[in-house]
């Protein structure tokens, strides 16, 4: 256990204390108790920068489940640290923002911050674990803390729907990832990521390699909302805005990207990796930006925008993998895609985080997020407007913001695909830059919609619930910090180039003895990328202005949310089938349930008896039979068989008595005097009871007919047969010596009694007998209660 481990679990520890703080200090916003932790964590992780900027890593490990080879290994390298800084840094800002966003008198703050801290700890665990099982554990933890946070306003139907949807989709992916982890373990014999990477060359041609790759990709795609799994992210926007800013733009949805980056050294050499990641990424990029344009809710626009930006980072990681196949060319030539991925990851966290906060402010101060109702807010909220402009212009890829730099780099990466001649990239590769460019145009359009439909245009006060005014300063601090970062990175990108980007790249594509060196230039000259950007801006402005004219394009699309349709009908279909199936076999009839039980009983016992060779028939060691015993046996047999067919209740009671008394006689013959006595007494009382009940049961004339039922007969013959076979085997097999001799030898010495059965009951097994008496007492109480108390329905009878 090191300080690093403590840092990972500290959010969990604080989560335990939060409810106490909430109860004790109701007057103080609980957020203030939470805020110091992410700040502390952020400064702690900053101290690791000196190690990782040399592209080195630190691993601290302690045994967790040694029997299974699972260590809690925490590893800080460039990639892990980048994410840890994002989680703790954005986490601090989000907590600060939430203090002003959530009203301490109206909201359940204790649960909110507990969930948030759970998430923070889980996310740190995901990005800092070097053991796949530990990573998986934290991974699922993020899924369900996200579920809790989305469903935070659980009284809203849509919150519950969104929470369930995100849970189902991400946990499905998580399980698939677990499958991938197990496959990797089968191939390598270890759960340690470092060891798997070290031995990745040997598993490349293994037959399980491709299935493992696919399993991991499903995990990553569901988590990072890639097409067609992206449908959960827009519905997750039902979460409070601080949560959306934190989980659903900056951190959790990037866990999938983290996974892809982390597993790149293992899988990236395979052509499937490149094609699937780049293909799904670019599709997601296009579809997300295309869908974002038609949204009318600010957060929905941001959600689809996040989907599309995640697709963009994903596609860059996919294309970046191609660099592994070109060793002769200048190293940074094809790795630029990976550089762009990491760079954009950081940029996206800054501008999207601030935009979510801006959307939250607008919602908070006006009461709506619908862009059809909003407009002209610029005059009321100048600071928010400025922040929105910075964020959206960066998102649209306009200079001088950081988004421009990474968008240029993105274009560079995509254009260079044209020069690649592996994996058939020379035939279909041209689609990448084309789709990238088209998607960027739509990105530009929705960015403009976001800012201009909200802040300019006609002010419609009658549509708003509240009178808009500028947000309190506390709420503005966080987006201001993020927006400043947007500008600072935009002007001085090289301050993060070799501290954050290169180390992360070294972790994604480790090359022995090679040190990555990144320089980001603002001006590249008149390159194709620059013209692409100019084209985006020109066409973007044109289309934005003419938007009302071509908006109808969206109406022609086949059923606008087809994937959601599929999800909904699939879900209700499963429920429907499950319900039908349960109704079919759980039909309320005791007889049916008994049939299931007895059938199962026959099948399992018979199969065990014969498959395991347990059946044995040995008639050599049997005692002699006398004639009188045969007569008694016949009496029992006839009685038992007749009782099945008699119609009269009275006759069956008498037959039952006959069987019981004969059993007592058998006890006499078998040298069991105590049993015989007890049986006689009990049988007498039983028959008396039966008769009593029989006497009291009214309407006995209404004896139902009892048609002979073949199923019942087959099942009962089966049960009888199985029991007989078991009795034979039990008699013929003697696996162990009997323990009875102990009782016979010690009855007098230890318990000073001569009746062995009695001594066993009251002495050796005294507790058994005591509990037996307890059972009888409970039965007696039950009987007394049923007869005397007459709860509820009893009165009804009296009234009659």
């Amino acid at each position, binding site marked *: 256990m090191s300080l690093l481990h403590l840092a990972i679990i500290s959010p969990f520890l604080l989560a335990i204390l939060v409810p106490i703080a909430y109860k004790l200090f109701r007057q103080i916003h609980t957020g203030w108790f939470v805020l110091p932790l992410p700040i502390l964590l952020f400064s702690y992780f900053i101290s690791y920068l000196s190690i990782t900027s040399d592209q080195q890593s630190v691993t601290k490990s302690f045994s967790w489940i040694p029997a299974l080879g699972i260590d809690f290994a925490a590893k800080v390298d460039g990639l892990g640290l980048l994410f840890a800084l994002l989680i703790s840094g954005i986490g601090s800002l989000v907590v600060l923002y939430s203090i002003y966003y959530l009203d301490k008198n109206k909201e359940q703050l204790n649960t909110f911050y507990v969930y948030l801290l759970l998430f923070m700890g889980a996310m740190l665990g995901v990005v800092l674990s070097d053991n796949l099982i530990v990573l998986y554990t934290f991974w699922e933890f993020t899924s369900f803390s996200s579920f809790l946070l989305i469903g935070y306003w659980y009284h809203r139907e849509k919150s519950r729907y969104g929470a369930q949807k995100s849970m189902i989709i991400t946990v499905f992916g998580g399980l698939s990832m677990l499958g991938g982890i197990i496959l990797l373990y089968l191939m390598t014999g270890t759960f340690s990521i470092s060891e798997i990477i070290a031995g990745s060359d040997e598993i490349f041609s293994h037959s399980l390699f491709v299935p493992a790759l696919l399993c991991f990709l499903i995990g990553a795609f569901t988590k990072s909302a890639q097409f067609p799994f992206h449908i959960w992210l827009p519905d997750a926007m039902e979460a409070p805005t601080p949560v959306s800013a934190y989980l659903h733009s900056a951190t959790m949805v990037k866990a999938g990207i983290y996974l892809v980056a982390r597993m790149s050294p293992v899988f990236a050499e395979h052509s499937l990796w490149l094609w699937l990641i780049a293909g799904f990424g670019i599709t997601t990029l296009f579809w997300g930006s295309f869908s974002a344009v038609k949204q009318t809710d600010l957060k929905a626009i941001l959600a689809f925008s996040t989907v599309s930006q995640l697709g963009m980072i994903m596609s860059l990681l996919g294309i970046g993998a191609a660099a592994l196949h070109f060793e002769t060319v200048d190293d940074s030539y094809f790795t630029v895609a990976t550089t762009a991925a990491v760079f954009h990851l950081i940029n996206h966290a800054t501008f999207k985080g601030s935009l979510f906060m801006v959307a939250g402010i607008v919602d908070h101060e006006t009461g709506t997020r619908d862009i059809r109702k909003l407009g002209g807010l610029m005059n009321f909220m100048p600071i928010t407007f400025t922040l929105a402009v910075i964020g959206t212009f960066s998102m649209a890829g306009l200079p001088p913001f950081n988004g421009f730099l990474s968008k240029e780099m993105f274009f560079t990466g995509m254009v260079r695909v044209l020069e690649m001649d592996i994996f058939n990239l020379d035939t279909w590769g041209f689609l990448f830059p084309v789709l990238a460019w088209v998607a960027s145009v739509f990105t530009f359009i929705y960015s403009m919609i976001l800012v201009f439909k909200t802040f300019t245009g006609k002010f419609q006060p009658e549509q708003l619930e509240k009178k808009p005014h500028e947000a309190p300063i506390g709420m503005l601090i966080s987006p201001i910090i993020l927006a400043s970062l947007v500008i600072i990175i935009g002007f001085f990108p090289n301050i993060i180039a070799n501290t954050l980007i290169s180390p992360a790249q070294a972790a994604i594509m480790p090359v022995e003895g090679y040190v990555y060196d990144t320089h980001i230039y603002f001006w590249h000259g008149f390159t194709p990328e620059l013209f692409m950007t100019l084209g985006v801006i020109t066409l973007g402005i044109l289309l934005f202005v003419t938007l009302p004219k071509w908006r109808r394009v969206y109406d022609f699309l086949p059923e606008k949310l087809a994937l959601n349709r599929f999800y909904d009908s699939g879900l209700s279909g499963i429920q429907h089938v499950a319900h039908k199936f349960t109704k079919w076999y759980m039909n309320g*009839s005791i*007889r049916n349930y008994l049939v299931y039980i007895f059938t199962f009983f026959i099948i399992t016992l018979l199969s065990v008896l014969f498959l395991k060779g347990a059946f044995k028939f040995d008639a050599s060691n049997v*005692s002699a039979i006398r004639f009188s015993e045969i007569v008694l046996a016949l009496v029992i047999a006839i009685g038992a068989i007749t009782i099945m067919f008699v119609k009269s209740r009275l006759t069956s009671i008498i037959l039952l008595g006959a069987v*019981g008394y004969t059993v007592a006689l058998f006890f006499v013959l078998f040298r069991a005097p105590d049993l015989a006595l007890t049986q006689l007494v009990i049988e007498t009382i039983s028959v008396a009871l039966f008769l009593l*009940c029989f006497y009291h049961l009214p309407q006995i004339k209404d004896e139902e007919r009892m048609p002979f039922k073949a199923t019942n007969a087959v099942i009962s013959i089966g049960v009888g047969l199985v029991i007989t076979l078991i*009795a034979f085997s039990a008699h013929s097999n003697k696996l162990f010596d009997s323990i*009875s001799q102990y009782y016979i030898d010690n*009855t007098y010495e230890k318990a000073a009694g001569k009746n062995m059965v009695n001594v066993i009951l009251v002495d050796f097994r005294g507790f058994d007998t005591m509990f037996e008496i307890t059972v009888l007492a409970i039965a007696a109480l039950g009987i007394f209660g049923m007869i005397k108390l007459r709860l509820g329905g009893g009165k009804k*009878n009296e009234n009659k």
Partner: protein
Amino acid sequence: MEILISVIVGILFMSATYLMLSKSLLRIIIGTAILSHGAHLLILTMGGLKRGAAPLLGESASSYSDPLPQALILTAIVIAFGVTAFFLVLAYRAYQELGTDNMDKLRGNEGND
């Protein structure tokens, strides 16, 4: 003897199962009573039959019957009686309250179970 009793046990179980699968509550209870008879005989048979004197030290015999199954059965007889009595009263009260002892009619109402 053990073989014969094994067959008898099988017959008792068969009869008990058949009765328990029927509709009438009273027959189900009779079924459980017969089932316990069968189980008692089964336990006794497993230990071997007629292998010596009754398990009383006063007999001063050279060998005794196995006392352990007898102790188990003694417990079982009493418990079976308790259960049968409970069942009977339950059936009686159910009949009084609901006016039937037909299991097909005692299914619980939809949405009320």
